[in-house]
């Protein structure tokens, strides 16, 4: 059996931005992620554009997505968002240490007869030992494989589309209208011309 192991959030965020998580579903395999990866893609305000994409995907995959709990992940998820930002600044390698713990756990949880494909984007993954029967594949190389299998027409086009989606999200971040707690949508132009600064009203 094939296990698709995703130790960092990069691949999921890439396919999530594209709204093409279905490409991971094209294979009969278990998908294994860490609790930190799951938390990163599922967090954020409900208005985050790609959050519903991940919520739908995790719900639809049921127990075919296995989330492996790590000590780092458990502690990380218990922290307030401000504490997470502070720790990230002080300890930029915290994510890497969590991946190392994840790889150690995998050696004991994945059946030895299974074939493992590690889908990654974080360079540090290349320096880690995942055990026997393991092949590493970067997101772009995974897309090239999909092209070779006839699943997508072009890996280059799909990889380029990530930036196009990112540009739209960047614009959306600044152009999205503010919604006040009472649900009213702000109209900054009218507010400006009216001489008010009560955004959200």
């Amino acid at each position: 059996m094939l296990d698709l192991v995703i130790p960092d959030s990069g691949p999921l965020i890439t396919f999530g931005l594209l709204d093409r998580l279905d490409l991971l579903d094209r294979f009969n395999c278990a998908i294994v992620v860490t609790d930190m990866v799951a938390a990163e893609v599922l967090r954020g305000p409900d208005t985050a554009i790609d959050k519903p994409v991940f919520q739908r995907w995790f719900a639809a995959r049921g127990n075919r997505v296995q989330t492996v709990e790590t000590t780092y992940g458990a502690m990380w998820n218990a922290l307030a968002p401000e504490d997470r930002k502070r720790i990230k600044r002080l300890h930029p390698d915290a994510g890497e240490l969590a991946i190392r713990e994840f790889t150690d756990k995998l050696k004991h949880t994945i059946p030895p007869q299974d074939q493992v494909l590690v889908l990654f984007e974080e360079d540090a993954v290349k320096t880690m030992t995942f055990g026997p029967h393991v092949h590493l594949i970067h997101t772009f190389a995974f897309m090239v494989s999909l092209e070779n299998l006839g699943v997508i027409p072009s890996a280059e086009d799909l990889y380029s589309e990530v930036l196009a989606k990112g540009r739209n999200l960047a614009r959306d971040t600044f152009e999205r209208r503010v919604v006040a707690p009472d649900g009213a949508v702000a109209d900054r132009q009218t507010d400006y011309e009216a001489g008010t600064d009560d955004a959200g009203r």
Partner: protein
Amino acid sequence: MALTSPYDILHAYSQGRISSGEAICRLHLDGFRDLVIAMADAGHPLPRPPRAEVERQVQAALPLLRQALKPAESDRA
């Protein structure tokens, strides 16, 4: 080369000279998603492994993926 500006940092990440974790930390971003958005907004191409490495990874993964590929009728509409 010193990474003194957001451009330097994003450019270094784009060229694979620094990791995503380091870029996120130096730019005080909230995670990988924000890094992709920053790359897109500033017009930097996303990093990718060297061609030979991509070919090696694809050759190793293809037999496994081919064996696990579901029939085409489950294609996305």
